[in-house]
C-alpha cells in the first residue's frame, strides 16, 4: 500500500504511465463494463483475476465485466506481461481506477436523485434512495471518465468484506479452450488470407549463398518466394502448400557456414565475462575471525528451451501504408516499436492486436514470427498473411533461457553457523525482448539485405535483477559478497525464461545450504531457520516442513527428501518446497509439498494452478531438460531430442496457501521455479549420499558423479 508521501512521487502501478481514467474502463449501453488492460492472457488466468478486481471495486457481478483484448490502439501501455507483476502493477492500477469511477458514479447518482451520497444503496450497479432508482449506466457519459485517476480514491471494501476478490471463480477463457472453439491466435482466419513460412538454415545464421527455387515455385498454390538478403520465405494459398514449399526451399538453399560454438559452454562463460559487478557486499571482521572451515562448490545450468506446445504464430495485413499485426507477444507496444524500426514506418502507422497463444513461459518466438508475417505481407498485395512456425523453427530459432555457471564459497564457525558467504555467477543477459534496445530485437531483422545489428541480451537492474535475480541470499550472513559476471557475447541467442536467473541462483544457494548443513551436522530445515529472521520466510519453511512431516521422515534405500526455499526476486512471493524422490535407474519425484505466501490471493485456485504448474515445469527442467548444441547451432530440434516430463513421470503436488489477506498481492507465476529445483537436488543427495551440482539431474550425470567418488 502506498503512503500519501510515496504517492506524490509515484502513482500506483501502471497508473504512472497511464493516468487517465478513460484508459482503464468504459461503461457500455448494455449494462456491462469494458475493462482495458495492457496485460495479456498467457494461460496464467490474468484476465479472470483482473475482472475480479474490477468487479470487486465497482461492486458489480463479475459477469458484467468485459475484458478487452490488448490492442495498441485501445489499451493502456503496460509494457510486458512478465515478471509476475500483472496483479501488482495492472491490478493495483485497475483497482484505483475502478474505485475512482465508482466514486464519480455515486456523486452523479446523488445529484440526479437529489440525495446525499451517504443514503444511496448500491447493488450490482443499481443505486436506490427514497424509492427512486438509477444505475451506473444512466449516470455516465463520455466526459465523466475523461480525467486523471485520483490515486487517493478510497477503496470500497477491506479484505474482510471482499465478495469477489479472494474467491476461486472459474477462468473466463477455459470454456472456449476446453470445447475446442477458436480462441488462439493460431485459429484466427482473415478474408483472402495467405499462408506463409520462413526458411532458415539448419544451424546458425551466416548468410544465404545460393538458392534454386524452381521446385518450390512449381508446387501448386505457391504464390511467391520472398527473399531479402538472407531472409527467405514463401507465400501460398494453402497452408500445406506453404509447408511443402518450405521443405523444398530448405533442400535447395545453400547457406554460409556459421561460427562454431564453444564445446564447454560453462568454461567459456567464465573465460568471456567482461563486466564483473559486485551486487552485494557485507563485512564484519569479528564474525570473519570466527571461521573454522570453508567450503566451495561449483554449480551449473544448461540452456533451456521455452518449448511451448504451440509454435509461434502471427498474422499481418498491409492496407495502404498502414500495418495491422495480430500477435501473442507478451509486449505488444514494444513489438510495435521494433516492427516500425525494421519496416521504416512510424509507430502510429502500426497497430498490434493481441490474440491468445499457447503458454510461452517467457520470450519465445512470438515477436519474431510477427516480423516474419509483416515482411511476407509486404509483398502480398494487401492480402493478410498468416505465419506459424514449425516445431524445429521454435526449438532452433527462438531465444533460450541462458546457460549459467555458479561458484559458491562459505565459512562456518565452530558452532556451525555461516559467518561468510560468496556467490559468483557467470551468464549472458536474460532479456533480449523488443523495445529494450535501440536495435530491433527481432530475428529476421538481422538477416535482411540491409541487416540490423543483433543487440546483446541485457540484465534488468536490481532489486528485481535478471541473471542476478535471487543471487543475494535472504539469509542473514554477517559477511557476504555476490558478484554478477556478465557475458556480452552470445554463442546462443538468450532471453527471458520464467524466473530468469532465479532458477539457477536458488538451485545453487539452496543446494549449498544443504552442503553446509551437512558439514555443520545440522538438520537442513533447522539450519535454514537459524539463519533466517524474515517471519514470512520462516512461516513457509515451517509450514512445508509440517505438511511434509519433515521430522518424521524414515530413511529408506533409494529414497530421499529435500527442501528448497526462496522469496521470489527477494521482493515477491515466498515459496518453500519439500521433494520426496526415489533414485533407481533415474530420478522419480513422487511428491512435492509446497507452502506459499503471495499476500492477498485474488483467485486462490489460480494461485494454486500457477504454483503447481511452475513446480512441475521446474521438475521437468531439473530432471530432463537441456538444449543440445551441435558444432554450429542448436541440435535439439524435436521432442525426442528435447524430452520434457510426461504424465506418468509427474509428481503429485500438494500446496498450502498461507492466508495473508491484509498484505499486498504478489505474483505467483515464477515463485516455485528455484525452490523446486533445489528441493529435488537435495532429495537426490539425501537418497544417494552424493551431490549432483550440474543440471539436469539425468541418469548419466548421476552415474558420473557416483563414479568420481
Amino acid at each position, binding site marked *: 500500500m502506498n503512503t500519501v508521501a510515496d504517492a506524490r512521487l509515484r502513482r500506483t502501478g501502471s497508473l504512472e504511465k497511464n493516468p487517465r481514467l478513460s484508459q482503464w474502463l468504459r461503461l457500455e449501453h448494455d449494462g456491462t463494463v469494458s475493462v482495458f488492460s495492457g496485460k495479456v492472457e*498467457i*494461460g*496464467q*488466468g490474468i484476465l479472470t483475476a483482473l475482472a475480479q478486481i474490477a468487479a470487486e471495486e465497482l461492486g458489480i457481478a463479475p459477469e458484467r465485466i468485459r475484458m478487452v483484448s490488448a490492442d495498441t490502439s485501445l489499451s493502456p501501455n503496460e509494457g510486458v506481461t512478465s515478471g509476475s507483476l500483472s496483479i501488482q502493477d495492472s491490478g493495483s492500477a485497475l483497482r484505483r481506477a475502478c474505485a475512482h469511477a465508482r466514486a464519480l458514479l455515486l456523486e452523479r447518482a446523488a445529484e440526479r436523485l437529489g440525495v446525499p451520497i451517504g443514503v444511496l444503496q448500491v447493488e450490482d450497479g443499481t443505486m436506490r434512495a427514497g424509492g427512486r432508482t438509477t444505475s451506473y449506466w444512466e449516470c455516465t457519459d463520455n466526459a465523466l471518465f475523461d480525467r486523471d485517476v485520483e490515486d487517493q480514491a478510497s477503496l470500497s471494501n477491506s479484505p474482510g468484506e471482499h465478495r469477489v476478490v479472494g474467491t476461486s471463480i*472459474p*477462468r473466463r*477463457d*477455459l*470454456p472456449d*479452450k*476446453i*470445447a*475446442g*472453439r*477458436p*480462441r*488462439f491466435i*493460431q*485459429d484466427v*482466419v482473415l478474408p483472402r488470407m495467405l499462408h506463409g513460412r520462413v526458411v532458415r538454415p539448419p544451424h546458425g545464421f551466416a548468410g544465404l549463398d545460393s538458392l534454386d527455387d524452381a521446385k518450390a515455385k512449381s508446387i*501448386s498454390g505457391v504464390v511467391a518466394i520472398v527473399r531479402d538478403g538472407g531472409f527467405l520465405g514463401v507465400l501460398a494459398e*494453402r*497452408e*500445406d502448400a506453404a*509447408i511443402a514449399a518450405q521443405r523444398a526451399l530448405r533442400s535447395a538453399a545453400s547457406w554460409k557456414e556459421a561460427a562454431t560454438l564453444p564445446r564447454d559452454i560453462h568454461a567459456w562463460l567464465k573465460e568471456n565475462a567482461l563486466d564483473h559487478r559486485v551486487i552485494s557486499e557485507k563485512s564484519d571482521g569479528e564474525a570473519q575471525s570466527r571461521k573454522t572451515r570453508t567450503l566451495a562448490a561449483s554449480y551449473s545450468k544448461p540452456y533451456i528451451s521455452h*518449448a*511451448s*506446445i*504451440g*509454435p509461434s504464430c502471427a498474422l499481418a495485413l498491409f492496407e495502404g501504408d498502414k500495418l495491422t499485426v495480430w500477435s501473442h507477444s507478451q509486449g505488444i507496444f514494444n513489438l510495435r516499436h521494433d516492427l516500425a524500426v525494421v519496416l521504416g514506418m512510424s509507430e502510429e502507422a502500426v497497430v498490434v492486436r493481441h490474440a*491468445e*497463444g*499457447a*503458454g510461452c*513461459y517467457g520470450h519465445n518466438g512470438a515477436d519474431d514470427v510477427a516480423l516474419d508475417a509483416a515482411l511476407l505481407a509486404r509483398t502480398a498485395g494487401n492480402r493478410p498473411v498468416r505465419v*506459424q512456425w*514449425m*516445431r524445429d523453427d521454435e526449438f532452433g530459432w527462438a531465444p533460450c533461457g541462458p546457460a549459467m555457471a555458479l561458484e559458491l564459497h562459505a565459512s562456518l564457525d565452530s558452532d556451525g553457523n555461516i559467518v561468510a558467504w560468496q556467490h559468483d555467477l557467470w551468464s549472458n543477459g536474460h532479456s533480449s525482448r523488443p523495445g529494450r534496445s535501440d536495435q530491433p530485437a527481432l530475428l529476421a531483422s538481422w538477416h535482411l539485405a540491409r541487416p540490423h545489428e543483433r543487440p546483446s541480451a541485457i540484465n534488468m537492474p536490481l532489486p528485481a535483477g535478471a541473471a542476478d535475480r535471487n543471487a543475494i541470499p535472504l539469509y542473514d550472513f554477517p559477511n557476504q559478497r555476490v558478484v554478477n559476471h556478465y557475458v556480452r557475447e552470445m554463442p546462443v541467442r538468450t532471453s527471458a525464461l520464467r524466473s530468469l536467473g532465479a532458477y539457477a541462483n536458488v538451485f545453487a544457494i539452496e543446494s549449498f545450504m544443504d552442503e553446509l548443513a551437512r558439514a555443520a551436522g545440522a538438520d537442513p530445515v533447522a539450519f535454514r531457520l537459524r539463519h533466517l529472521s524474515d517471519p514470512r520466510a520462516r512461516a513457509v519453511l515451517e509450514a512445508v516442513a509440517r505438511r511434509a512431516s519433515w521430522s518424521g521422515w524414515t530413511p529408506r534405500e533409494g529414497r530421499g527428501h529435500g527442501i528448497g526455499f526462496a522469496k521470489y526476486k527477494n521482493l515477491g512471493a515466498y515459496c518453500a518446497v519439500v521433494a520426496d524422490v526415489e533414485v533407481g535407474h533415474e530420478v522419480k519425484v513422487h511428491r512435492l509439498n509446497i507452502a506459499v505466501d503471495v499476500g492477498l490471493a485474488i483467485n486462490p*485456485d489460480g494461485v494454486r*494452478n*500457477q504454483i*503447481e*504448474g*511452475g*513446480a*512441475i*515445469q521446474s521438475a*521437468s527442467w531439473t530432471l530432463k531438460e537441456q538444449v543440445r548444441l551441435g558444432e554450429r547451432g542448436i541440435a535439439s530440434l*524435436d*521432442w*525426442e531430442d528435447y524430452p*520434457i*516430463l*510426461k*504424465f*506418468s513421470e*509427474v509428481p*503429485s*503436488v500438494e500446496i498450502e496457501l498461507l492466508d495473508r489477506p491484509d498484505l499486498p498481492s504478489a505474483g505467483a507465476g515464477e515463485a516455485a521455479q528455484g525452490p523446486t529445483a533445489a528441493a529435488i537436488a537435495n532429495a537426490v543427495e539425501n537418497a544417494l549420499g552424493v551431490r549432483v551440482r550440474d543440471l539436469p539431474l539425468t541418469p548419466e550425470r548421476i552415474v558420473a558423479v557416483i563414479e568420481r567418488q
Partner: protein
Amino acid sequence: MTERFSLTINGAESVIEADPDTPLLYALRNDLELKGTRFGCGTGQCGACFVLIDGHPAPACDTPLWSIAGKHVTTVEGLGRPGALHPLQEAFLAEQAAQCGYCTSGILISAAALLSKNPSPSESDVRAALDRNLCRCGSHNRMVRAVLRAAAGART
C-alpha cells in the same frame, strides 16, 4: 495433384479437394474450419493434434488424407452431442484442468479413447493413456483428476 476426398468427420460427410498426401490436420483446420485440433510438432510426438480414427487416437498432423478413406474421424468438436459438452469436457471445467489450453483438445481425445475401452480406469491407467500427450504448463494432475471425475460420474 489434387483429388476429391469424401471424409466422415464427426458423423457428417464432407467433400474436399486436396493432394492425397495432405495431412488430415490441414483439411480439418483450414477446409472444414474445425480449429480445435491443433498443430504442435508435425511428427506425431506431442499429441496436440490427436483425433479419433475409428475410435483410436492418432495424430492428424501425420495422417495423410488417402489413408482415412472410409474411416470415421472424431475431433474435439465432435466429442459431445450437439449443444452439450462431453462429460470429460464438463469434468475439465469443473477441475479447471488447464492453463494455456493448447494441448487440451488432444488430451480430451486420448481420455475419451481410454474411457470407451476402460470405463473405470485407475490413476496410473489414466497417466499411461495420456503419456503420448505433452503438456508444458504443468496441468497434468488436474487433468488426471478430471478424467477420473468423468469416469466416476459415468458410473453413477
